[in-house]
């Protein structure tokens, strides 16, 4: 059998090649693209305050935006790139998933909930924020609980997980709520402010930032037991273990070094340059403190 040694050597060399490949960890996916093109594309949001937004000086800012900046620095360091061009692309709740899935955007860090349906198309980094949906109402509206919404007009941003939650609640309890859909966070608040809806449902942190931006913050309050906790994570393309590891490493590293806490203070407790100077004033919730102790990338 003269063929046998040949086959054997072929197999051996193939195995060797595989081993070598494993050892050198050849770049593929996002990191390869970044290295090949010398650029990385980050998603931006217009008014996802205080996560990712344009401030009064027309500069991109935000808690999640700064996290994505840290990722860029880390990529530069890891890949030993002298310079890395950062491209940005503004996304909306409707466009962000297709744009990450079709690889137009490399990293999307804003107020994006990690859930099972989305995980079919994209991957999520370690969670950097935990929220629950609550209600924003005028103080004199008389609404204190979710059950006070029966038969009323309630506004929610179209396509968000809050809309899904409100529809489920309405369907289950037969509350007969008229659901008004707003196309973004600003229109959402405009709808309660002009009196078309008595309440707005959103992730609590966004409601607090809306109050901070209101003409008269003292008129407004956030009520209702938080429904359905949700985890915000950075979105990146699916099945890209190397890039996910890098992003996760950046976030957990920030949590460990205390950089995360100081960034939190900067955006959630101190004035930010939006509409003059507003303060979101949202101290760390017990859920957030728990997250800092045990970072993870699980949807809630």
């Amino acid at each position, binding site marked *: 059998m003269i063929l046998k040694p040949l086959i054997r050597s072929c197999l051996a060399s193939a195995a060797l090649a595989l081993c070598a490949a494993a050892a050198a960890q050849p770049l593929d996916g996002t990191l390869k693209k970044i290295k090949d093109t010398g650029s990385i594309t980050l998603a931006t949001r217009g008014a996802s305050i205080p996560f990712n937004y344009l401030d009064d000086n027309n500069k991109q800012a935000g808690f999640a935006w700064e996290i994505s900046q840290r990722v860029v620095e880390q990529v530069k360091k890891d890949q030993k790139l002298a310079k890395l061009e950062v491209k940005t692309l503004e996304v909306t709740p409707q466009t962000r998933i297709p744009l990450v899935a079709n690889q137009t955007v490399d990293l999307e860090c804003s107020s994006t909930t990690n859930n099972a349906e989305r995980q079919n198309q994209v991957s999520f980094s370690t969670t950097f924020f935990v929220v629950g949906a609550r209600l924003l109402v005028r103080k004199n509206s008389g609404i204190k609980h979710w059950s006070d919404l029966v038969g009323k007009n309630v506004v929610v941003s179209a*396509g968000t997980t809050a809309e899904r939650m409100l529809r489920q609640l309405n369907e289950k309890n037969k509350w007969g709520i008229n659901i008004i859909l707003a196309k973004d966070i600003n229109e959402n608040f405009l709808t309660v402010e002009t009196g078309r809806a008595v309440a707005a449902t959103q992730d609590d942190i966004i409601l607090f930032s809306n109050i901070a931006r209101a003409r008269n913050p003292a008129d407004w309050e956030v009520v209702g037991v938080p429904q359905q906790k949700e985890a915000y994570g950075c979105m990146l393309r699916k099945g890209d273990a190397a890039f996910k590891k890098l992003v996760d490493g950046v976030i957990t590293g920030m949590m460990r070094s205390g950089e995360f806490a100081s960034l939190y203070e900067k955006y959630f407790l101190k004035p930010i340059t939006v509409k003059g100077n507003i303060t979101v004033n949202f101290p760390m919730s017990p859920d957030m403190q728990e997250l800092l102790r045990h970072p993870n990338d699980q949807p809630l």
Partner: protein
Amino acid sequence: MHYTWDWLIFFKPSVTGEGLYGLMLLRGLWWTVLLSLLAWTLALGLGLVAGVARTLPNRPARYLSTVYIHCFRNTPLLVQLFLWYFVVPELLPVDWGNALKQMNPTTNQFLTVLVGLTLYTAAKAAEQVRAGIESVPRSQKQAAMALGLGTAAAYRYVILPQALRIVIPPLTSDFLNVFKNSAVALTIGLMELTGQTRQLSEFSAHPFEAFIAATFVYMAITYGVIVLMRHIERRARVPGLLGAA
């Protein structure tokens, strides 16, 4: 591209507990069709009146319709819609404005878009009608007058029967545009076909399937309109007249 295709998504129950995902598209289709057909019917009537008025000897009628057509044809539909939805209720007396805002939101959104879309489309249709009327040789009107017909009768029996036949093909384009323009309704929250498609893509995280399906639905609608208008065009043909081979 890392994308998980799932064409059966339309037959899976929605995460909101409101039936299948496919039903969302059907609900959207219902609003699109209802809105577009109503708006088109109204716009055709209004456009005919405004178009005729632009060619009348009566000066106030001519000015009025010219101002209307210029205002509504030369501003973006989206801007008009926002004015109708957010600004007009604030300009009305407070009670009226509040009554409008406390209406059932879907009815309110539907009526707002209907008004906006009708006025916008009618302004365009009016220009087509005017062009049609102007394409009928002036001598025809003079001949009608010479036979003792008044302005109304001359329009009714001589000018309009010819002008309207001429403008059927350009009006087909406007008819198609109504269906496509009706998608602006989603910006004030009326979930017509495009709006529901966005919802579907968000809830199911299958954006490509959702939008591809919606594209085919729009194509089917517009193809139906084209076939219908061709049919009308053939039926309305008069041998010996312009465009009738």
